């Protein structure tokens, strides 16, 4: 019995050690460009949020070359009706302008971690639910690029993308653009992704934020 117990503990300890080493390795590589020259198109997850978030994301997408970021997966919160519609309009306009040849976009909804005004206490539970749903979606998508700009929905998705890197399921590059509405303080999503070093590149639109968060890239106003 003792021998059995010892074996199990040894396996657990070894697994934890391997996981921690791998975690440190991924953290070390976060923010370091790894791509080979002339790379292939990358499957891209685009996280949409209500209000200005989606407008800002569409603004960013309009200057990216869509043949490099394909297939595209758009995710919005289940209670957000407008964002996926705006994304569909955007994708249709790409087809219409012949920027892309065929439709390679998918549109999905995810349970929200936290509604606006929801108490932080109940948010813990809803975040766990949202994380399970996010895991399910991420296993299906396994994106190589994640683009997000602030809504709470991006946290479970980015954390899972990071875990996928650690476990070796899929390597991805995570880009976070803090909303233009954040001038002096980061949003909660931004703060989490910045402090946990999860985003490979973290962009801010106002110089005040760059001074407070030196690892962020100041890119000026996008809108």
């Amino acid at each position, binding site marked *: 019995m003792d021998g059995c117990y010892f074996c199990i503990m040894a396996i657990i300890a070894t697994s934890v050690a391997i996981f921690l080493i791998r975690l440190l390795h991924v953290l070390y590589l976060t923010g370091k460009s790894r791509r080979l020259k002339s790379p292939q198109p990358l499957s891209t997850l685009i996280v949409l949020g209500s209000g200005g978030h989606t407008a800002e994301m569409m603004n960013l997408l309009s200057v990216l070359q869509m043949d490099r970021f394909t297939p595209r997966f758009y995710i919005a919160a289940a209670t957000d009706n407008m964002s996926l519609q705006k994304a569909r309009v955007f994708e249709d306009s790409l087809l219409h302008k012949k920027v892309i040849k065929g439709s390679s976009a998918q549109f999905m909804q995810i349970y929200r971690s936290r509604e606006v005004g929801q108490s932080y206490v109940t948010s813990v539970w809803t975040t766990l639910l949202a994380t399970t749903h996010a895991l399910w979606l991420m296993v299906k998508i396994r994106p190589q690029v994640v683009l997000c700009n602030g809504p709470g929905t991006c946290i479970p998705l980015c954390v899972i993308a990071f875990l996928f890197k650690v476990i070796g399921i899929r390597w991805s590059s995570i880009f976070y*653009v803090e909303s233009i509405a954040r*001038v002096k303080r980061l949003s909660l999503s931004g703060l989490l992704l910045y402090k946990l070093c999860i985003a490979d590149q973290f962009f801010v639109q106002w110089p005040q934020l760059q001074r407070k968060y030196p690892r962020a890239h100041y890119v000026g106003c996008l809108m």
Partner: protein
Amino acid sequence: MGQGTYLPAESIGEDGLLAVDCFTFSSSIADHLSSASLVISHAGSGSIFETLRLGKPLIVVVNEDLMDNHQSELAEELADRKHLYCAHPQSLHQVIVGMDLKSLLPYQPGDATPVAKLINRFLGFPDD
């Protein structure tokens, strides 16, 4: 209207009275904005930039009830840079009385291409 309880009285504006129209949603809001000589708006970034891009004078009214009130940061910063006037519901009247729309500076639209460049470079895509 919307989440509130106040419903303005509509009026076609006869006899020198103020014409008032109201709607909760308009698919042609861009047309209304284009034909306006002054816009008074909440502090949502979409509303702010849509109006500034059209070059319309703008007074932003900040909703103090929003949790952590992040909307006010943007309105105050743009007001500091003299692109718009910023008010609270209680100070709106004062702001309107004291405003000088000609003193507002035009807002130069932003550019997302620096971000695109950095993203492309990070992923190893060639510069355009």
